[in-house]
């Protein structure tokens, strides 16, 4: 099922960068609070993130790909329902799966529950939400994504970037600098955001290509 790669409207192209910029500024703005009080900051920034992601998806994607007949007259209103479904799905399924993955990758089990869970939700909104919205319930394409074999686009590379970023975010934790920001899960979340932004931008630039390996 090839993606219909019509030339993106210049305004839409601007939109994706605007979205990137607002994601980054959201993180930077809330960073001091995130360091001093991770749980509550993670919670309060969730709606902002959800809104940013939804707005971006509504504006940039012409139509969810699960639709058999791509109608030319996709409007924001027709996309609202799948968008809402995707959001629910990524919150109810994506976040718990990511929580388990975070645990497997070394997140604390017995302590810091709210921090880890909220990190999983953030990660899910960054990585899963766009993917679900775009892929729907297409098993074949999901398998391609899990095998890292899908066609390059913003959502896919963004998700890869977010996961790799979260993984790489663990690097500075053991350093003996004794900084406040080394606490859990600040670096993980920062890594995820940074990875998502980089992956998304690369995916945007190289959309339509195959993965090199």
């Amino acid at each position, binding site marked *: 099922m090839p993606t219909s790669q019509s030339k993106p409207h210049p305004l839409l192209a601007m939109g994706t960068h605007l979205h990137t910029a607002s994601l980054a500024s959201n993180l930077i703005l809330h960073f001091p609070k995130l360091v001093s009080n991770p749980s509550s900051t993670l919670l309060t920034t969730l709606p902002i993130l959800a809104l940013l992601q939804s707005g971006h998806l509504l504006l940039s994607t012409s139509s969810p790909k699960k639709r058999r007949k791509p109608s030319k007259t996709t409007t924001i209103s027709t996309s609202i329902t799948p968008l809402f479904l995707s959001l629910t799905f990524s919150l109810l399924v994506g976040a718990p799966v990511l929580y388990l993955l975070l*645990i*497997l*990758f*070394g997140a604390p*089990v017995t302590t810091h529950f709210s921090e880890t869970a909220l990190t999983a939700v953030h990660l899910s909104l960054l990585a899963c939400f766009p993917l679900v919205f775009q892929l729907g319930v297409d098993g074949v394409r999901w*398998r391609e994504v*899990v*095998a*890292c*074999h899908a066609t390059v686009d913003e959502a896919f590379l963004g998700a890869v970037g977010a996961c790799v970023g979260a*993984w790489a975010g*663990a*690097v500075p*934790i*053991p*350093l*003996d*600098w004794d900084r406040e920001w080394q606490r859990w899960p600040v670096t993980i979340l920062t890594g995820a955001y940074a990875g998502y932004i980089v992956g998304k931008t690369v995916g945007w630039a190289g959309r339509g290509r195959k993965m090199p*390996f």
Partner: protein
Amino acid sequence: MFAKGFFPYKPFLPGLAVFNEEDVQTPAPFNKVVFMVVDALRSDFVFGERSGFKFTQSLIFSGRAIPFTAHATSPTITMPRVKAITTGSIPGFLDVILNFAESDTTSSLAQQDNWLAQIKANGGKLVMYGDDTWIKLFPGMFTRSDGTSSFFVSDFTEVDNNVTRHIDDELARDDWNAMVLHYLGLDHIGHKSGPQSAFMLPKQVEMDGIVERIYTAIETQPHLDSTLFVLAGDHGMNDAGNHGGSGEGETSPALVFMSPKLKTIASTYEVPLKAPTKPRSGEFGFYDTIEQSDLAPVITSLLGLPVPRNNLGVFMPKFLQLWKSEERVDVMMRNARQLRSIVVAAYPEFERLSQMPYAPHNQCGDSPSDVEELACLWREATYLLGTRNRKNIVDTSEPATAIHESLWKLCTRYQQILSGVASNYDLRLMTGGIALMVGATILSVVKLVPVIGESSLADLSFLAITVAYGVMMFASSFVEEEHHFWYWVATGWFMLLFLKERRKSNGEFGLIFVLTLLRIIRRWNQTGQKYAGAPDIVKSYFPEHTTILWVLIILTYFDVFVGICRHGFRNIGPQAAGIFAFTTTMAAFGFKLSFAAYDAMELVPTWLMPGAKALTEVPLVNQARAVFGVVGAGMLYTICESNSSAAMGVDGNTTPSTADQSQPTDPVDHIAISMRELTDIFLLTQTRFANTPLILLFRLISRRLESLKTLSAFEITLTILILQHVSFFALGGANAISSVDLSNAYNGVAGYNMVIVGFLTFVSNWVGPIFWASAAPMLLRERRPADARETWKKHVLVMTTFFAVAGLAVMAACTALRTHLFIWTVFSPKYLYLMTWSLGFHIVAGIGWGSFMIAVSRK
């Protein structure tokens, strides 16, 4: 070669010091000394507000005791500290290794001058009760002694009672001149449950009671009236109760001099000392902080003996009050002359420089070099001394103080500069070592390049891991927290493998299972520096769930038992194999159980107690020997079996017993597997019992990997490399000297045998890596049975490349960061660990044992 340049050679002057004709003999304020060492007695244990040393504090308060915090240099372990206390020198890093090879004769102090030898040489008698380190360090020196060994750290009371029971007897006698007591209980409590332990305060109260007993005897009994009583810790402990590094807690032991005579000193204080008190500096800097080596000149001077030759300690001017004012200069001068002779040995030009005429009002601090500064200070001091002698003044108040000050300044500068000498590096040798390493690296890379290319994923990952590891060696916190790197790499690598598997086939979630196991494994033992002492499965979960622990342990042994039953002893029939497997595993399990009952009774559940009790009848040594014997016999038999089946020729492969079995597998497999199972039994014996279930988890992972047929040989090699490191840290290993586990080093050894104990120590600390090394041949054979030799060669090549690069990186880091604050605490232990990894583990266990197993199974 690098090692020789890196670990500095320190010249020491042999022979005993004697009084020179220039030294003026001064009367000795004391003629006896009681030297009471309490192992790991951190300063706050005595001086702090939550201390149990109430009597000692009352002595400080009333001025009959002079307290210090004695700064101990790293490595903060007992033997180097005892050396520092007695000789006044600063032991080099090499002593750390010798501490573990305890009875090695080169580390004994028979050759080096020290205050015990001085007492003996001057006709005194010595007695010693406590830690047998002293007896090993000073062979034949003590007239009466009773050594206790610190083998079982769970023993809090017996070790100390064995010392205390001699005290009254000895205090009644007057034939000794020095009594050394070394209590280990407090250190054991620290190792076992940390400084906040509930046992800590009662132990301090007990120690305080002993102080009171001895002090009261000194005060009341006439034959003890000129006895100096010293209470000292050899080192401190960190918040986890361990020591060895240079944390503030570890380097700050308490030191108290006690005697009724000391009141004369206290009377000169402007403000009487308070006790208990708050630290003056940092967390543990109570009262004045001095160097631990300063003890040596103080003790010898107070006893009227010459200062030990290699002493770098400085006499404390405070104690000068004990002498008449005109004698004080001589006491200081002796110390200064003694230090001067070391300076002359280290810097021959000093002799010439010190002869130069003295120019008054010359600022010595501006001198161009250390030697010249010392020479300048020396000239100043001798000038002042000369003027005093010329004037022949009895009224000494004003000039004498100036001389004391000048001499003291001179001595402390000596100390600072000479301590620096102790870490001079031979850069030429170090560069040579690095050059050799570069050669080895290039060689292995050149050899490796043509054979790679099979799997781009593994190639890239190997490159990334090796480079990242090399870079990491330059960051002290990453060296300390190396386990994080490996856990982190392991998750990433297994995720990559998982994704790769998803590409090829569907439905294989085995790698997620491996990831889950790895998640449990990394929580097993908390390791590293930053979070040392944080809760983990072994320390927080098992003490309350002993049944689960032992069920897991039994499962582990059962798993190995099944393995041997299935694959071992094919030629003698399944019954015999079953019996043999049963004997072996039961012997090994019995040993583990009785060891556990000995070492940590509280971790053995009640339903296993009868078994443990029954086993205590048999000495541990014999049990361990039985296990080793059975394992050895099993291995020998397996090797013979492989030979005989090879001798029977190609058709003889199906021997009668294997024909009975329904599985038509290749007998070659069985031999390799049973060798591996027997190795596992041996490894299990050398593992701390709380860690044995980890071996079960490793076995599960290894079985999962075997079933993943799509992995290439290189991917398997890389997986093994990662798992070797992960398992090393999961079993509690770290890049710190204090993490070396000695609890299994004496299994089956009654006396001390350096080779065997060294070997057992190595195995017990490298259990995990050796497990993977012995699993490697099997895992690789699964890949490509056709050209096993080629695959093995490549495996060895990859491993060699990794260790060569790692070695190069560590050496470069040690050279580049040789002036770094952490060089002795972080980088040089890492270097020692790397040497063991590459020489001990990689060459012997990785290549040697692996090749042996392949050779045996190929016959």
